[in-house]
């Protein structure tokens, strides 16, 4: 039994197997696996007795439910008007230089993915970004470098 199948079984037991519980289950899988693989979508469809295409259609609608391989930490920079006015591009440049990847890519070692997202609701502390579910605001290039280094170390410590 793959770990994902087991995870999906528990999520289904916890949330229920109706169509309206689909989104919580999808979120549960993304929280763990960082993305929805083809296999996991099929398992969800089997568990909830739903057509696979419906699961795929619903999942691809929401920007947080990724369906491509993602790194362990997903960095999401807010690109809406106030953040982009307050220097979001410099932040992106700094991260790109540090991690050697462009927006939309994942680092070769699979630790970080860099994405852009729409308004995070921190316009008064722009620019802002999310790393997985943590919010970081009033970013400056130095602050970003510092945040990333301790993520890399934290990452290092876990290994």
């Amino acid at each position, binding site marked *: 039994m793959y770990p994902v199948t087991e995870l999906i079984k528990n999520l289904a037991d916890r949330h229920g197997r109706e169509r309206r519980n689909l989104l919580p289950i999808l979120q549960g899988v993304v929280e763990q696996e960082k993305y929805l693989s083809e296999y996991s*979508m099929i398992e969800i469809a089997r568990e909830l007795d739903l057509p*696979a*295409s*419906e699961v*795929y259609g619903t999942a*691809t*609608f929401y920007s947080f439910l990724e369906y491509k391989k993602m790194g362990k930490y997903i960095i999401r920079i807010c690109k809406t008007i106030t953040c982009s006015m307050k220097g979001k591009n410099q932040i992106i440049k700094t991260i790109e230089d540090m991690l050697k990847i462009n927006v939309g890519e994942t680092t070769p070692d699979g630790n970080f993915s860099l994405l852009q997202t729409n308004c995070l609701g921190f316009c008064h502390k722009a620019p802002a970004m999310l790393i997985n579910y943590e919010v970081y605001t009033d970013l400056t290039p130095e602050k970003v470098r510092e945040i990333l280094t301790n993520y890399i170390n934290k990452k290092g410590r876990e290994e």
Partner: protein
Amino acid sequence: MAKNIKITINEVAVEIESGTSILDAARQTGVIIPTLCYHKDLCVAGNCRVCVVEIVGQKRLSAACATPCEDGMDILTNSFKVRNSRKHIIELLLSEHNADCTRCYKNGNCELQKLASDYKIMTQDFIRLSRSKNYTIDHYSPSIIKDDSKCIRCQRCVRTCEEIQGVNALTVAYKGDRMKISTFFEKPMNDVICTNCGQCINHCPTGALVEKNYIEEVWDAIADKSAHVIVQTAPAVRIGLGEELGFKAGTRVTGKMVAALKRLGFDAVMDTDFSADLTIMEEGTELMMRLKRALVDRDPEVKLPMATSCSPGWIKYIEHMYPNQLGYLSTCKSPQQMFGALAKTYYAKAKKLDPDKIVSVSIMPCTAKKFESNRPEMHDSGFRDVDYVLTTRELAIMIKQAGIDFMRLEDMPFDSLMGESTGAGVIFGATGGVMEAALRTVYELVTGRSVPFENLNITPVRGMDGVKEASIKIESPIEEWEFLDGVELKCAVAHGLLNAKKVMDSIISGESHYHFVEFMACPGGCLGGGGQPIPTNPEIRRKRAEAIYAEDEGMPLRKSHQNPEILKIYNDFLLKPMGERSHQLLHTKYSPRERF
């Protein structure tokens, strides 16, 4: 009775039932409102916004298909605001569309083309988006081609696959400008659960979903002098073909169809109805044997009810959805495949032809037959039983291509050896037809008397409602079947895969127990199949059904076992139904498939 309300449409006062949508109210008063994502078979989506109308007093325009009328509404379907908006919306649709109509399969029969020509879009000022998008064409499936550059995202196919067929092969994916109709993980239609029933083709307003056509291959076969090209035509083709060539819906063009096929250059024009009668003989006997094993030998693992197996869309559906219930299916092949097998054995021997030189073509109202003809187990004659399958639409195109003036053709009969057919064969094309044909023969074999229905029309299995049930009491059968005395033969008929699912679920849960169930993949049976002329809607299906039953009443022979050519084939070649040779040629087996 819902109370009537008064509204005015284009300053014409009208009284209609409350709750009718503005679109229906307008239609009743002779005002045409353009629609694209609206279809009589499907629920109202209201997402193309082409049918917006102005309600006096409201700033925003409302969609006529989705807005119910309220008392005192003053509706303008052609005010300045409406015309401007409608023109803009159509132009927006065109800016995303690959407008190369001359090379499109649906040229001349496309709702977007008609809309653009009716509402004369002459300006071209929006930026062509279709060029900057990398549209893909999926042509791996033997039945269906999906061309995204022609899709206007009206979601009619998604709603068809969900509401009528319950298969959900297609869904809407992504969001914003990347939104598109796609399968699971954008896989080719051939790799997902699609049953090739073609209902999505029938409901698609543009050329985004069309059938894979084999017109070129058939023309080449005809042109090849050394090949002996034979063609078989399905029961539902003769009452659908007329619509493509200028006749009203429900006109019977059997004789003209045969004449046209001969004019096209086919060496022998024969009738699938012949093998429909053959199917009745085989399947009827199989049913009798199952009943015998169930009631006499008390054999536990005999599977009752027996399900018909002539709809390949239904077969692929059950293989996907109920892989371990395949035992219910009758082992008989579909009439098309039976014909194919016999063509390259019995017919070849009788006409002293080399089977390798025979090219067997079939004209079907169905796109799933294209998939069925290249299933691995359909090579029992040593060669591929049916080489090419054409839909009714493709035949109409070939007739036009050959420059045949169809209206003025005089009728011609089918060729011999496999062209004779009975009324029971013809009604295969309508839902409940196979059941009625089977009952006419089985009842007579068992009791020696003909079916106790006036003029042999077993009305309870007729009509368009989703699931139909009927039961016939068997009294004083002939002695060979006397164990059936007093047994109430319970049968059911389901058309449209969603209804099929209902019946299957009730069988598995033991809620209902029938002896014999007819399943058809398409609503209305084969007459509403995926290959029939477009448009197809409830009234057209009813008219086609009337035509089929009229053809049945007009036939001299009405029961399959009276067909002389059938009797001839049994004593020359097959010896007896369910005999050793029948098993080798006319029966098949099924393979379970992954559901996802």
